[in-house]
């Protein structure tokens, strides 16, 4: 399970962030289903050959985002992601829309044009 | 003796087994040659003497200085032992190695003197003294190796001790009470003899004890 995570030191992003993102992706995609136990911090650190402290940090971040829950003495588990993955995705969507709105405003684009472009984008997605 | 010391002594014996076998064989060959007449005796004596001295020098040099130079010392020091244990083990290990060969060669030499009809038994006390002197010689060289780091100084010490062997051999014959009985048909064990034996043994003991008080007490091993 964990051996699929890949940490690159040449990647500009810090290692703990790479771990966070990759775990987040797998949870969101459903590869790591809710309730599944995560590898222990030490085991994952040893498998990825990164320091324990890096994995610890990644797990803490994931927990504060609500992606995982840590039960004292038992380990870390993928949180009940029913509403969670969706919440994360909605948050992502809102962020993208806000950015789009920002750009539209800076171009002084009328609302109708923006909606048109959004419709085009949606149509493109469905034909793929 | 704690188990580590025992293992290190065994290690010295294992590591230098071929040196000991070779040195002892050379010395025995010398003794054999000494049975074949006067020329053979002279050659054989030199071979025997060289074997004993060279063995001692090589044990001291390889056993201590080389280990230090080759950084194998660090490997031994990483073991669960104190500096005192290390010095003790070195001392005991190398001494054991030397004594094994020395005992065989000394017994052989003394037996040769006693058994060969052409060699007066009056030489026996001289032989005993020489053997003990060679033991003392080794102890001094070993003591030096454990304290001296400089190769030049060690070289100097070895030259000095070698010279002292020649001086001893020439000098003993002049000691009143010893020299005149050397050619006698029967060995003379008199007071001058025993005094000299005691002095040599005391010097040996001192040379072997010194590292335990100086080298072993050093707080910086390296």
């Amino acid at each position, binding site marked *: 399970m964990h051996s699929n995570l890949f940490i690159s030191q040449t990647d500009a992003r810090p290692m703990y962030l790479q771990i966070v993102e990759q775990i987040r992706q797998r949870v969101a995609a459903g590869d790591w289903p809710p309730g599944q136990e995560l590898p222990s911090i030490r085991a994952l650190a*040893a498998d990825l050959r*990164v320091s324990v402290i890096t994995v610890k940090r990644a797990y803490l971040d994931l927990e504060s985002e609500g992606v995982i829950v840590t039960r004292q003495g038992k380990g870390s588990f993928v949180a009940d992601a029913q509403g969670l993955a969706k919440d994360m995705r909605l948050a992502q969507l809102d962020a993208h829309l806000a950015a789009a709105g920002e750009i539209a405003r800076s171009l002084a684009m009328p609302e109708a044009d923006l909606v048109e472009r959004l419709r085009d984008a949606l149509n493109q997605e469905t034909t793929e | 003796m704690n188990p580590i010391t025992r293992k290190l002594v065994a290690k010295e014996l294992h590591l230098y087994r071929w040196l000991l076998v070779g040195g002892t064989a050379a010395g025995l060959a010398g003794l054999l040659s000494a049975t074949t007449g006067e020329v053979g005796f002279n050659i054989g004596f030199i071979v025997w003497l060289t074997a004993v001295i060279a063995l001692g020098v090589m044990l001291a040099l390889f056993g201590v200085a080389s280990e230090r130079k080759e950084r194998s010392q*660090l490997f031994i020091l990483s073991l669960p032992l104190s500096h005192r244990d290390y010095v003790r083990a070195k001392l005991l290990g190398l001494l054991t190695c030397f004594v094994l060969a020395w005992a065989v060669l000394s017994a052989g030499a003394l037996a040769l003197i006693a058994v060969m009809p052409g060699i007066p038994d009056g030489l026996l006390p001289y032989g005993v003294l020489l053997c003990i002197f060679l033991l003392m010689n080794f102890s001094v060289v070993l003591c030096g190796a454990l304290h001296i780091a400089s190769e030049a100084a060690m070289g100097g010490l070895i030259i000095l001790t070698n010279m002292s062997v020649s001086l001893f051999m020439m000098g003993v014959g002049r000691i009143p009470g010893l020299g005149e009985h050397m050619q006698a048909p029967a060995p003379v064990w008199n007071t001058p003899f025993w005094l000299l034996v005691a002095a040599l043994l005391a010097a040996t003991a001192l040379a072997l004890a010194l590292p335990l008080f100086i080298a072993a007490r050093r707080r*910086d091993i*390296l």
Partner: protein
Amino acid sequence: MNAKVIEMTGVRKAFRFFTLEDVSLALEPGQIMGLVGPNGAGKSTTIRLLMGLLAPDAGSIRLLGHAMPEDQAVAKRDVGFVSDDMRLLQHASLAWHMDFIASIYPGWDAAYAATLLKRFGLHAGQVARSLSTGEQAKALLLLALARRPRLLVLDEPTSGLDPVARQELLTEFMDVLRDDSRSILFSSHNTLDVERISDRITFIDRGRVVAASDKEVFLERWRTLRLRVTGAAPAWQLPEIVHRDVDGSFVTLTVDGFSEEFLARLGAPVQEVHRMNLEDIFVATVMHSRQAQEARPS
């Protein structure tokens, strides 16, 4: 078990041309600490003091709770020490060394030793003298690892190794730490490896500890900032600024202690904020420390 695995406090050791001054170091169980410093900084001296091979002029050293150098015989039972200038007994074979170590340490794992032998590409029958430098290094590490000691103290463990062997070694190190009661202290020039696997990092330069922190703290505190200024660059008197580089209207600041609050105090608009890798953090720390030392009235 909360007792520290390594505890050096205010250690001082003077040599003719070099002095180790006020060195303090602490390692918790289950941690791996990287000791980083330029050549001659005092890394090897620190490690030898730790192992009881040198006695400090001042300060205290405790290894696995034992006072050093007095109790080194007991302490070393649970410590695997390998140094890059250490060699095997040249006339003996690797098999002899393995038997020797196995007979001394009850924790010897013969199966693991056999695995490592294969993994490192070594043959037990080889005489030490015939091994290359890299192979001797791997052999020494094998002898230390197969004992499964509670603490590994390694002085430049990867310096003689090819990249493949280095990776294998790092894998073994991290394997050691699967057990949270085992710890590692290693000194290295290779900041990339140190950055990857260390929990704690200590920087040493010219006989002094220049910085010591959790690795993530280092990586979070340090940033380089690029700003564009109009006119002369303001003389920011902020203590976090370790270095400034002015190139026309572009200013690059090296910052130790970056935060949103710092940006507010800076006041100027920042074009780019870059994280720094450990190598750059290390160089900046050492340069800053040396400047501070030179500025100090003697």
